[in-house]
C-alpha cells in the first residue's frame, strides 16, 4: 500500500521512499524517512494535493509524490 491510498483520518508507518533525484531527496529531508509514523489529515478541495501530519508538523505533498511512499501497518477505519 502506498501513502496516496490512505484515507483521511488514517495513518501508517513508512516502509520505503521511492522516486529519484530532487523529489526523493526533498521527501527524505522533510522527515519522510522509513519507520516514521504519518497520518493523512485531509485532501485539498480539488482532490489533490494531500495534507499529512508527521514529526509534529503539517506537510502537504501531491498524490503523485505520495504514490512513491510505500507504507506498512496501515490503520484504516
Amino acid at each position, binding site marked *: 500500500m502506498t501513502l496516496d491510498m490512505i484515507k483521511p483520518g488514517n495513518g501508517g508507518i513508512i516502509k520505503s521512499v521511492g522516486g529519484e533525484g530532487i523529489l526523493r531527496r526533498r521527501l527524505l529531508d522533510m522527515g519522510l524517512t522509513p519507520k516514521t509514523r504519518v497520518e493523512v489529515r485531509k485532501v485539498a478541495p480539488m482532490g489533490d494535493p494531500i495534507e499529512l501530519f508527521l514529526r509534529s508538523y503539517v506537510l502537504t*505533498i501531491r498524490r503523485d*509524490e505520495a504514490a512513491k511512499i510505500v507504507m506498512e501497518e496501515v490503520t484504516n477505519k
Partner: protein
Amino acid sequence: MSLIFALAGNQNSGKTTLFNKLTGSNQHVGNFPGVTIEKKEGIIKNHKEALLVDLPGIYSLSPYTMEEVVTRDFILKEKPDLIINIIDATNIERNLYLTLQLMELSIPMVIALNMMDEVIASGNSVDVIKLSNNLGIPVVPISASKNQGISELMDVIMKTAYEKRQPRKLDFCTGEVHKAIHSISHLIEDQAKKVAYPLRFAATKLVEGDEITIKELNISENQLHIINHVVEDMENALGTDKEAALADMRYSYIEKICAEAVVKHQETLEQIRSEKVDKILTHKYFGIPIFFGIMFLIFWITFGAVGAPLQEIFEEGIAVITELVSSLIIDAGVSEVIHSLVIDGIFAGVGSVLSFLPLIVILFFFLSLLEDSGYMARVAFVMDKALRKIGLSGRSFVPMLIGFGCSVPAIMATRTLSSERDRKMTIVLTPFMSCSAKLPIYGMITMAFFPNNAAIIMITLYFIGILVAILSGLLLKSTVFKGNPVPFVMELPAYRIPSATSVVMHMYDKAMDFVKKAFTIIFIASIAIWFLQSFDWSFNLVDDSAKSVLASIGSLIAPIFKPLGFNDWRASTALITGLTAKEAVVSTLTVLTGAVSDVELSLILNGIFTPLSSYAFLVFTLLYMPCIAAFAATKRELGSFKYAIITAVYQTVTAYIVALVVYQIGTIII
C-alpha cells in the same frame, strides 16, 4: 565591520521576525550574486561591529534548490564568524535536520530555540541544557515575536563568536555510514584543506555523491572510483541507498536527542487551533469560495473603497505641487523648454506613476497579513491543482490574481515564491492578466464600436489574457523552463497573528522600492518620452505633436500593424506612449485626433479602425509589454536588464501573433 553573522533556519521558523528584532531598521536588501534570491543584511542593534546576513529559509543543505546552493556558498566562501541557527521549538525534529548539516561546516554556532512560549503554554517542555550538551552547541530559548530571550541570545552569540567556539565534533553517525565517512575523510583530507572545505562536510557530501564538492575538491577519477566503491559497500551492508541512509541516520540521531530532551504531551495550542481553522479555510466545498471571497475583499478595499479615494488625494497633492513648481519656474523666467521638460515630462511621468503608491502600500499590507498569518501556504494547498498543468504551483495564484489589479505589485509579490523557477515564470505570465489601467482603453474602444456589447467584449479580453497565460505557461514549461520543477513538498505552518512590526516593515520596504523605481528608471523614461514628443528631427520644439519625433516613429512603425488591421500613425504612436502607463493610450489618441468630445472621438476612431481591427488593437494592448513601472519591477525581480528586455520582447511578439490570428480569422469569418 569586524564580525559577520549568518542567520540560518527553516522557513516559518520566525527567521524574519528575529532578524528584525536583532537589527531594527538598520537593514539593507539586495540580491545574492547571480541569482534573484533576496539577501538582507543589517547591523546588529547595540553591536556596531557585527553584521547580520539573513540567509534563505531552507530545510536542508542538499544542493538541489538555488536557495540551498546560495546558503552553502555563502557559508563556505564568506566564512561567517558565527551561524545563528533559528529553530521552531514546536517542531524540533525537522528543524534539527538542518542543524546537523550546518554543524558539519565547522563554524561557531548558536541555536536560537524560537517559539518556546508556545511550547510552555501547551504544557510541553524542552530541556535546553540537555539539548545543548547533546548537540555540543549553546542553545538559547527565545520567543522572537514576544521579544523574550533576545538579549540573552545576543550575549551568548557574542561570547561564542569571540571564543571562536566550534560545534563539538559530532558522532551522530553509527556503523556503516560512519565507516564510509571516515574512510572518505582520510582519502580527501589534503584536498579539503587546500580549498579550505570543512573535512567532515566534504566527506558527507561525497558520500551523497554531491557534484559541487567533487568539482571544488578536484576529486580525481581514481578517487571517485574508490569513493563509489566505499559507498556501494555501505549501501549493500545497510540494504538501502546512500540518500536514504544519510537522511535516516540524521533523523535517528535527532529522535534519540529528542527522546531525552523534549517532553511532548500534546500538540501546541496553536497547532490545535490551526487544525480547527483549517476545517473551514481548506474545507472541501468552502475552501475555494472563501479564498476568492478574501481576494475579492482585498481587491475591493485596495482598488475601490480605500485605495481609490487615497489615490485621488495623492493625485491632487501631486497636482498642487506640480502647479507650485510650474509657477515658480515661470516666475524665474527660465525658458519654456525647461518648463515643459520639468512639468510635462518629469512631473507628468513620475507623478502618474507615484500616484499608484497608495495602492501598493495597501496591497502589501494585505499580502503581508496573508503571508505572515500562514494563509498563503493554504492558498497554495487549495489552488495547486489548478496551476500544476502549466508547470506552476498553487503559490503563483496570488501574484497572478493581483495582476488583474496592477502588474507592478503583482510582480513585486512574486518575491514570496520559494522557487526561483516558479518566480521567473510567474513574472513573465502575470502581465497577461488584464490590469485595471487597461480598462479606460477598453472603455474608449467599446464605446466607439460595440456600445451595446461592451461587457461581453471586455469579458472576452479577460479570457484571452488568461488563455494566453495558460498557453504561454505550457510553452515556457517545455522550452525555457524545462527541467525539473521544484517538487511541491510544502509545510503548512500553524496560523499565527502577524506581528505589526513585520507588516509595517514589509509595507515600508515595498513602498521605498517603488519610490526608488519612480525616481530612477521612470524618471529617465519620462524625460525620453517627453523629448520624443516635444521635438522634431532637427531638434526644434514643435507645437503640433503630429510633427514630433514620436509621431514620425509612429508613422514609421504603423505599417507593421497592417496585418492586424490598423495602419494609422496615431494608433501606433498611442501604443508607444502606452508604455509610460496604459491609460496614456487613451489620452494620446484623444490628443492626436484632436477630438474635443467623446462623440467626435468615436467618429474619428471609426475612420482609423474597423470593428474587427479595433478588437485586434484591444487584444494587442492587452498583451504587449507592460508599462515602464511594471518593466522596472520585472527588471528588479529578475535581477537582470537583459532578461527583462527578453521578457518584454516575448510579451510583445505574443501580443502581435495573437492579435494577428484574431484579425485574420475574423476576416475569414466576417
